[in-house]
């Protein structure tokens, strides 16, 4: 069966200059650098592996508790804990050298200079295929989301990163804004090759037993199926607002969900929280999307992109 599927449906998609063998990527922060999933997933069948956020210096992240379950979703306030770009190169990229999959490094920073610093350090690393600039993390005090909620700073970070690399540059947007299309236009105008969305919605949960917030940091980012309707709406808005390709994510659990995002205008999609629920999700979605197309006589998965009938 699977053989037949891969033979009849062309699963490759184009993201600017990047040609991916599948539209299924992994969402940053939910897949580490892939190693932990190697027992569950054939990493080489992924369209791309988007790493956990990497910063110039090591970041400690936020105090625990860092997660809370919510109806059909979860909150996290990990806070971009990571060992810094140097350790990332030594450990993660070294391990990834043995895996044939496009690697997109998710870049974090408190300042424009820090974002650029990470990219500059990575430019000499052959194992990096592109960058995803995270201007939308709700879990750090300065930088992060602050860049992603207004057009001017969003454009500035993008322009500075663009100047630092000729590699594919994806900018990841925050959903915590009044007009996501406006921000999308700003970053596309500043040179982004693609836009990914959505990052998490800022949320909160309270323990009625202790009268305390469930997250030590009080607020955190909401992800999972609960946010899918919001994510889909934003992908649809952004796909209509800009010419660059869109990578859609937010609550994708199965191939039907993935198809919804592509119909709304996404050229590729990312699996996030679902990796925790079922570590094989990315493979299931990949196979399921191929089957979805085959069953409908669709020859190329890319034909789904924007095929919504309104």
């Amino acid at each position, binding site marked *: 069966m699977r053989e037949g599927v891969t033979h009849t449906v062309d699963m490759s998609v184009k993201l600017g200059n990047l040609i991916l063998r599948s539209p299924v990527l992994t969402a940053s*922060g*939910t*897949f*580490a650098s892939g190693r*932990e*999933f190697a*027992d*569950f997933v054939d990493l080489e069948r992924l369209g791309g592996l988007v790493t956990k956020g990497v910063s110039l210096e090591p970041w*400690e*992240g936020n*105090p*625990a*508790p*860092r*997660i*809370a*379950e919510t*109806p*059909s*979703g*979860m909150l*996290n306030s*990990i806070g971009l*804990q990571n060992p810094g770009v140097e350790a990332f190169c030594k450990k993660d990229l070294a391990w990834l050298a043995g895996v044939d999959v496009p690697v997109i490094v998710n870049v974090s920073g408190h300042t424009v200079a820090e974002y650029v610093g990470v990219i500059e350090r990575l430019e000499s690393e052959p194992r990096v295929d592109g960058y995803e600039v995270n201007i939308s993390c709700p879990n750090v005090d300065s930088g992060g989301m602050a860049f992603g909620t207004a057009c001017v700073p969003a454009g500035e970070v993008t322009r500075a990163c663009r100047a630092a690399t000729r590699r594919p540059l994806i900018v990841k947007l925050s959903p915590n804004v009044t007009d996501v299309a406006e921000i999308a236009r700003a970053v596309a105008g500043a040179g982004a090759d693609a836009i990914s969305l959505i990052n998490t919605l800022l949320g909160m949960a309270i323990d009625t037993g202790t009268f305390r917030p469930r997250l*030590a940091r009080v607020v955190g980012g909401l992800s*999972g*199926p609960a946010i899918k309707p919001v994510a889909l709406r934003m992908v649809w808005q952004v796909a209509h607002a800009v010419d660059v390709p869109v990578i859609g994510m937010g609550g994708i659990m199965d191939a039907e969900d993935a198809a919804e995002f592509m119909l709304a205008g996404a050229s590729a999609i990312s699996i996030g*929280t679902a*990796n*925790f*629920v*079922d*570590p*094989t999700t990315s493979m299931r979605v990949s196979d399921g999307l191929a089957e979805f197309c085959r069953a409908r006589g669709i020859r190329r998965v890319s034909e789904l992109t924007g095929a919504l009938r309104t």
Partner: protein
Amino acid sequence: MGGCACSQPGVPPALENVEVVANDRVASGVGLVVLHAPRTAATVRPGQFVHLRISRESAALLRRPFSVHRVRGERIEILYQVLGTGTRLLAERGAGEEMDLIGPLGHGWEIPPGITHALLVAGGLGAAPLGMLAEELAARGVAVTVALGAPTEERLIARDLFETVARRFETATDDGSCGVEGFVTGVCESLLADEALDLVYTCGPEQMQRIVAAQAAEAGVSCQVSLERLMACGIGACLSCVVRTNEGQKRACVDGPVFDAATLLWDRSEIL
């Protein structure tokens, strides 16, 4: 333990479809579920856990981590306390129903070569991960002393198992309905004074584990503790389960749940 995964290579975890063989109440609010899980049963080591998906339809999205209490042939046994949505659903599952788990997971108890006498200190459901350990120690000829605490006699979990394998078995209950009246830490203190022990293993409420660890340190006996943390992935990818140690932040799901007490920075650690 704490980072030295070298000493416990184990098998890689896998996603396993399992079937409920039996699911019974063993005390008020406590159940024992027996799962047909041949791969996990064949490979799990004492102190490891499984990440269980109790329902696919539920609005409660995440898996739930549970220690493997015992293995019998192709079956694993899980002792669980009914607390919230997930464990309530678990209690409703009957024989024949299917679930899936990821396992075996985590870094379990270390059994250093040459030890001859170990003390196991369990508070409440803390008995769960100590079951397999007690059996394994006994099988290896290590003398086992067990101190088991609970609010009341009825809640002394896994008493039969410990009575069978332990050379010495002491209990403490809050209401004095069985054994010493008071906390199990009191029993632990006397045992540390009484017996010549090579190692203390403990699991239970974090506050209790902390006291036991301090008592062991005082007595110059090394101590292993099994910590509970909120876990999303269970496989080391999400960084939700961090534990502060003197070697930096560790992940309870892969570097633990069992840690050498001496490495823990208790003062900064989270009480669930």
